[in-house]
């Protein structure tokens, strides 16, 4: 049963979300941060894709339910793209 979550370091949360979406939802690694300023941040869209897959409330934000799923042990095969 869930207990009140401890306040988590925001940086750690963002890193968890990014790594999860890179591993399983084909979120491209942001190697060129200066380019990112001009482009649309793909993270919320990927997050929505992940939330829809797991039947969560689709918010595009890393809410508690979303983080809970991301922390569960799982299979290493991506959920949505071809595994090669």
């Amino acid at each position, binding site marked *: 049963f869930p207990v009140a979550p401890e306040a988590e370091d925001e940086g750690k949360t963002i890193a968890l979300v990014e790594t999860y979406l890179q591993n*399983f939802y084909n979120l491209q690694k942001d190697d060129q941060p200066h380019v990112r300023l001009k482009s649309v941040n793909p993270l919320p869209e990927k997050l929505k894709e992940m939330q829809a*897959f797991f039947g969560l409330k689709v918010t595009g934000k890393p809410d508690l339910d979303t983080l809970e*799923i991301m922390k569960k*042990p799982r*299979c290493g*095969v991506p*959920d949505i793209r*071809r*595994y090669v």
Partner: protein
Amino acid sequence: FTEGNPKWKRNNLTYRILNYTPLMGQADVDEAIQKALSVWSNVTPLTFEKIEDKEADIMISFVVRDHKDNSPFDGPNGLLAHAFQPGEAIGGDVHLDNEEYWTKDGRGYNLFIVIAHELGHSLGLSHSTDPGALMYPTYAYTDPKEFHLPQDDIDGIQAIYGQSNAPVQPTGPTTPQACDPNLTFDAITTLRGEMMFFKGRYILRKHPQRTEAELNFISLFWPKLPSAIQAAYENIEKDEVLLFKEDKYWVLRGYDIAPGYPRSIYRLGFPKTIKRVNAAYSDETTGKTYFFIADRYWRYDENKRSMDHGYPRKIVSDFGKIGRVDAAFQKDGYVYFFHGTTQFQFDPRVKRIVRKMKSNSWFDC
């Protein structure tokens, strides 16, 4: 399905176990793998032959961290395993993270469950969005003895390889949906203000302040409990929930299974002719608990810890025409009886049924 719909061109596939985890006996690993293969061969025309000394279609190995396939493992927990879609060389292969605590039961990660999932990928299945499916991406423990391949996985694999050669086609369990008008329940109880609806391997958990019911595996909360609980009731006074299956019962104290359980239901005073309890509820005002079995009910005194005399009585004599009871619970002074997809609201003060509803009326559908 995996993108591009890859599949094996032959139905007779080979597998090879390259190494073993030190945490389990080799015989247990072999058994887990054979059982995982039979999960898929039971529902398709596929067969699997073990080979020892040459390249097999499906190579199974325990590896750690970077193992030269561009998909490193991450140490304990997190990623447990992965597998490759049907194809030559690495295609079909299953890699298991050897830093996980692999077990043949539910103490660590159950090897059979994980390999059965990975073999789904080896055969061409992708991840399912059905939280009850074997091919759902996150790990959930099911006792291997109680495992039945869910219908979602059967439908998927049969769409690739066709039906089994068996004369009777196997079927599997489906995941309960709160708003399914045909939904029935195995057991229902309150638990510290929440409502818990038991169905097969699942609990639908309804919090009064939340509109949506949460679906979870029973094993997620209580790994030692079996699936298909048959009756449950809350004793608010003692802050306990009793859960029944066949001739055994468990006690939840708070949210945890109390030590020393399961115990025999005969300790509660049932005669040996009783093999199971269908439903139960406890009346907090009188301290009496009612047990429903077939067309009769027993009354138990929680204070005296014994069955009251004069029971069993016929359900119809005291509760009206509610038939046999699948599940029951008391809430806000009313008792709710469930029979199939029908629910009866019973008012104990006037001793009659005051309302008839669908069984899933507690969910905002």
